């Protein structure tokens, strides 16, 4: 235990100065791989289901994928700084039941609901950030506790599935703009835009550095606590937004609505090539990873796989995607080295 406990960060060697360029190449390749995978799956889908290329199907696919995509985007921020956030399930359930129990109609109502959802997520994120960054609890343990508390509060507000979400939110936000652009997709586009801006700020850079090597981050003057707290707060707000979009889609409340998101967000993050040990990855790749997961279900259904065995295919695709990513990364790294 004595010498061996010296926990040298395994990839500190990657922090050489010339590395930012290579890291960039890796990032683009991670995103590139998942885009290729998505296109392949969509190709299969269009072979098996002739309606795959209609605007209706695209709208359905987008609406299905948006809540998971936004939640996965939030999870990515925490994973990048080397943490796990289980509270995603709690926040989504909590915002969902609040939307169903206290519907606010009309466009202004939608804005108010959105503000409430973001505020709930932000507060939960702030608590998580405080527990992890200041009180130094392990992120997985602290967020497990906040997740359980949020689940409990959801049950207090709504003890059984029911309630209805405001009509404006459930109809207009799942519709299309100008006949082709899914409105829910615009929310994802906004998240992507914010991420692109965010990545250029001190916080965005800090996120990667803290995730790669916290000690080095601290020594180079990064306010580690601030980065961590901010990542949990923004992540939490994104879960709030995901809960908002989920409510728009399901139009009803369910105190367990978020439970299925727990594993799926991590699957989406990993599918997008983000390292679960921090420091490497991209929000955009996670969003496409989430879309891929949702598309996969449709493809398997269209391909006529018995619903008993869809799990086998999902598992195999998950593994193959990561192996494929590893192989490509390996070659890119080799080319970069020579």
């Amino acid at each position, binding site marked *: 235990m004595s010498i061996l406990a*010296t926990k040298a960060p395994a990839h500190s060697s990657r922090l050489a100065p010339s590395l930012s360029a290579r890291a960039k190449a890796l990032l683009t390749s991670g995103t590139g791989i998942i885009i290729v995978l998505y296109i392949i799956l969509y190709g299969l889908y269009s072979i098996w289901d002739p309606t795959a290329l209609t605007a209706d199907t695209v709208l359905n696919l987008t609406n299905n994928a948006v809540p998971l995509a936004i939640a996965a985007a939030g999870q990515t921020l925490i994973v990048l700084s080397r943490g796990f956030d289980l509270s995603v399930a709690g926040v989504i359930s909590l915002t969902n039941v609040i939307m169903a129990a206290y519907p606010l109609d009309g466009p202004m109502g939608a804005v108010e609901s959105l503000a409430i959802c973001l505020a709930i997520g932000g507060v939960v994120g702030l608590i998580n950030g405080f527990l992890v960054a200041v009180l130094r609890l392990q992120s997985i343990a602290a967020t497990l506790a906040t997740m359980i508390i949020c*689940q409990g509060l959801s049950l207090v507000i709504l003890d059984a599935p029911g309630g209805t979400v405001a009509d404006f939110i459930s109809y207009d936000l799942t519709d299309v703009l100008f006949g082709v652009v899914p409105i829910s997709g615009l929310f994802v586009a906004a998240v992507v835009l914010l991420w692109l801006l965010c990545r250029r700020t001190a916080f965005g850079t800090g996120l990667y550095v803290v995730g790669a090597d916290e000690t080095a981050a601290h020594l180079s003057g990064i306010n580690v606590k601030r980065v961590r707290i901010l990542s949990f707060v923004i992540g939490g707000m994104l879960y709030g937004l995901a809960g908002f979009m989920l409510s728009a889609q399901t139009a009803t409340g369910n105190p367990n609505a978020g439970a299925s998101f727990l594993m799926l967000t991590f699957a989406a993050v990993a599918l997008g090539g983000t390292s679960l040990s921090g420091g490497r990855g991209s929000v955009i790749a996670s969003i496409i990873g989430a879309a891929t997961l949702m598309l996969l279900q449709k493809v398997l259904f269209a391909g006529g796989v018995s619903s008993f065995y869809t799990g086998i295919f999902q598992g195999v695709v998950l593994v193959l995607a990561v192996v494929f990513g590893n192989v490509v990364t390996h070659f890119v790294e080799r080319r970069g080295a020579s």
Partner: protein
Amino acid sequence: MTETHPPGATVAPARRAQRQTESIADNRRTARLRPETITAVCVFGISILLVLGSRFVSPALGSWDHVNTIILLASFLIVVAFGQGIVIMIGGLDLSVPALITLGGVLTTSWIDASSGMSLPLIPAILLICACIGGISGLGVTLLRIPPFIMTMATGIITASAALGLTSGTPRGTAPPILTALMKASWIGIPVILLFIVAFAILGSVLQGRTSYGRRLTAIGANPVAAHVAGIAVRNSVLIAYMLSAAASGFAGMMLAGYANGATLRMGDDYLLPSIAAVVIGGSSILGGSGSFVATIGGAILLTALSTVISAIGIPQGWRTVIEGSIILIALLLLRENTFAFLRRRLAR
């Protein structure tokens, strides 16, 4: 316990130096207490307080019967958390736990008929099947370098789906007598499961703390590269860890089948997060390299005691869940390393 390391060089030396500066006072006795021991004592202490305090909730609680119930209900979690703890020790995470619990239970009830005498050879056979599935996870992690999180999630999904397909959605059969006896019989007045858990605890902690394999796991978790350089067969050790975890989950499934005298396809679902929580509450780092099985058992008993006490409170389910989460949070805060450092200073005076 912290994943946010203090600034300075690597963690352990920094912590040790901190301890040395703190130890100007005479602490020859207290310094011998390892953090793992303190955590274990604290977790068990909180559990005992909780059970004693539960008399205020309901007069039926806090009795010897209540303790027996807690140990019976915690036994499944203890067995699962043993495997989960080993995988977390090497810096991994096993998400295939629920699927393997289900598989263990389903195979037990569908293959071993209650009347046939084949239960003795079939139990190890089923454990071997589970271990092989764990081996697939282990191979994925070591050879294909797939993150443990994804690999075990994938084997979990695949196994669960296979169990669903095998049983066509409705598991049949009953548990063999040997398993019902394990869960329900008693021997000279002592429940068999209590004896089993004590034996399991001793074997488990000897494996983790006293054998060379256990020390190898700690070394790998602390730093896989250093462990490799030091001549440890990292791949094999990791592979065996996943196999052990899968076999442990499979055995927990058998125990559940024996307890409920049947299997369901969702019987494992409630054990994933608690198994991770038990390990983490027991003070193990989720990043690997530290922890003890005794403290993990304490974590499992604490979680189970908590849920038995809370379910007796006459308030709506939602508030009960909120209280459960809050108590877990308070326990985590009490079990922080800073608290121990504080206690250590106090004891040293």
